[in-house]
């Protein structure tokens, strides 16, 4: 949240390390990096855009060229088209839907513009040079293990486990749910009820309020996204319920503060960090300049990088707080 006076680590993207290790950050040939992402209708996406821009600004050799963020596929295609026409040196694309933008990404690649695919993946490997994103299935697994283990330890049998998804039509949502289900299965548990929200605070409130009516006794809730989580927590507070615990997703600073305070139902969150956008810009720059990653042995940037989904609890929250994004 923007108005949390106490918090505020300057930027979510850690400053580039000094150019000691092999000169990755040393100024090189000038690159224009085009950037296209969905409209910032929730905190995570807003953080993506902000991180990308902040990182680009740190390099004197990078010219950052963002285009209109939009949730209309058709318009995003046009936006990317315009970047191709402008002959940018590299593209960073977080598509609204990887499959639907695949064709235009492929066109860019074919035109010789390296594409760094962020988060939602293009199905065609010829469409991008490098993919960097989170592990959605892994997120579900992490949440499933945390909930499964906690309940097992408490000795609960037949627990009521609820799941509040984000936007149901996104493939990543389905991956998360699959991971969650698979992990719970190892404890012999399953999801009692599942509803989807829209990643927004308000939808979180609405869905949670109704779910709590449907289930008079709940053991655990996994909520896919910490932005809508603000709304979920508000609904919980309003209903005055506390018999269950909740796990979040993505890892917003706000969620971490809640976990740290340990006064509500939120006990953990599984990360899906928008810092990936900062990394994506760095990768795009390196690729365009023909450099490799100085910490690795290889001469080129790897073809894919999957961030691990980590579980943040009261015990390790301090370590993560600086990386948490303000939703």
């Amino acid at each position: 949240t923007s108005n949390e006076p106490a918090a505020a680590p300057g930027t979510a993207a850690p400053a580039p390390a000094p150019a000691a290790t092999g000169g990755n950050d040393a100024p090189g040939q000038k690159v224009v990096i085009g950037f296209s992402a969905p409209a910032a209708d929730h905190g995570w996406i807003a953080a993506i855009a902000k991180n990308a821009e902040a990182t680009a600004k740190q390099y004197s050799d990078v010219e950052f060229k963002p285009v209109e963020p939009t949730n209309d596929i058709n318009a995003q295609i046009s936006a990317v088209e315009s970047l191709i026409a402008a002959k940018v040196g590299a593209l960073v694309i977080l598509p609204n839907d990887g499959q639907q933008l695949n064709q235009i990404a492929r066109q860019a690649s074919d035109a010789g513009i390296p594409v760094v695919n962020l988060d939602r993946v293009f199905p065609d490997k010829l469409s991008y040079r490098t993919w960097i994103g989170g592990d959605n299935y892994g997120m579900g697994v992490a949440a499933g293990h945390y909930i499964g283990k906690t309940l097992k330890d408490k000795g609960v049998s037949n627990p009521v486990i609820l799941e509040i998804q984000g936007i149901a039509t996104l493939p990543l949502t389905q991956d998360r749910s699959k991971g969650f289900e698979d992990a719970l299965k190892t404890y012999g548990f399953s999801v009692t009820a599942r509803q989807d929200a829209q990643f927004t605070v308000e939808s979180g409130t609405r869905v949670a309020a109704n779910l709590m009516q449907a289930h008079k006794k709940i053991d655990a809730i996994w909520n896919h996204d910490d932005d809508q989580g603000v709304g979920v927590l508000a609904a919980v507070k309003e209903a005055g319920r506390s018999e269950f615990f909740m796990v979040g997703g993505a890892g917003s600073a706000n969620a971490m503060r809640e976990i740290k305070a340990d006064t509500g139902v939120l006990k953990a969150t599984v990360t899906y960090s928008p810092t990936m956008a900062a990394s994506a810009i760095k990768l795009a720059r390196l690729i365009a300049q023909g450099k490799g990653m100085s910490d690795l042995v290889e001469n080129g940037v790897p073809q894919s990088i999957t961030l691990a989904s980590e579980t943040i609890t009261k015990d390790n929250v301090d370590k993560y707080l600086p990386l948490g994004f303000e939703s």
Partner: protein
Amino acid sequence: MRPPAGGSTPVKAPAAAVPAAGSGPLARLGITRLGEARHLGLVIALVLLAVVGLVTVPETFATASNLVSILSLAATIGVITVGMTFVIIGGGIDLSVGAVMALASVWATTLATQSYGPFVMILCAVLVGTGAGLVNGLLISYGRLVPFIATLAMLVAARGLAQRMSNRKTQLVQQGNEMIVELSTTRVLGIPVLVYVFAVVVVLGWVLLNRTTFGRRTYAVGGNPEAARLAGIDVRRHTVLLYALSGLCCGIAAVLIMARTTTGSSTHGDLYELDAIAAVIIGGTLLTGGRGTIIGSILGLLIFTVITNLFILNGLNTSDQLIAKGLIIVVAVLLQRRSLESRT
């Protein structure tokens, strides 16, 4: 399409004024504008939904806490619906309601505003809402823009402004201003304060529409603006007031959404305009203006809210919810029509 123009010139005096034969008490009610009998179809639809609830989820549906929950959900958009009812009866439409509510919620939760405490926050939300409504009204009345376009422009601009002010972040209600949040958590007689606010707005709206000159003039301005003008009503000024009223309702709704979600956000109220308009129209208000009731709108809204509640209680997924919702809308309106026709 519009209904065909009414029949031709009829009877000389005595016969004309007396309603046709076969008119029972219901028909007589229907003749007066206030006749609540016109809502029969909506009430039937609601009762049917309740029966479905009682049969499918007997242990949860009819509990007090579920009913309270339904009302809490309905409250925010309900307040907006009251304003929308006025605007539509007055012959207009307001597409900007959701965005204006979002803007008001954001403005009221900036750190600067919050530093003055909860009352200033409330005042701020209400003023921002009313101000945006005023701009709508002025554009429409004096700029002579079509309401659809003027309020669409306001929708777009208000969302943009809200994003800009909030930096696209969700703004939490700060410590010290919990009073706002308590509107939703504090209960009187088991009912959250926010539901009372909703009720008060509905009652005030009803009184304003049915018992005051303002209400009369709203019907006149929407039903026949030229006649209203000839009767000495300042149609333009009244139009401005109608949109300001709708904006005021958005401001109040912003307070409620802040209470419920503990936040102000530029994403609040997405697509509220469609829901509110749909509720008003299902409630029997004509999009062409001049006719309609607050009670109908609220019943229409409750139908929507109960449907959502039932679906979630039954664990249906969104896709099925949507399909069923489409069907239920059609059935509710057909029922409504049937019940109106059986009276004539």
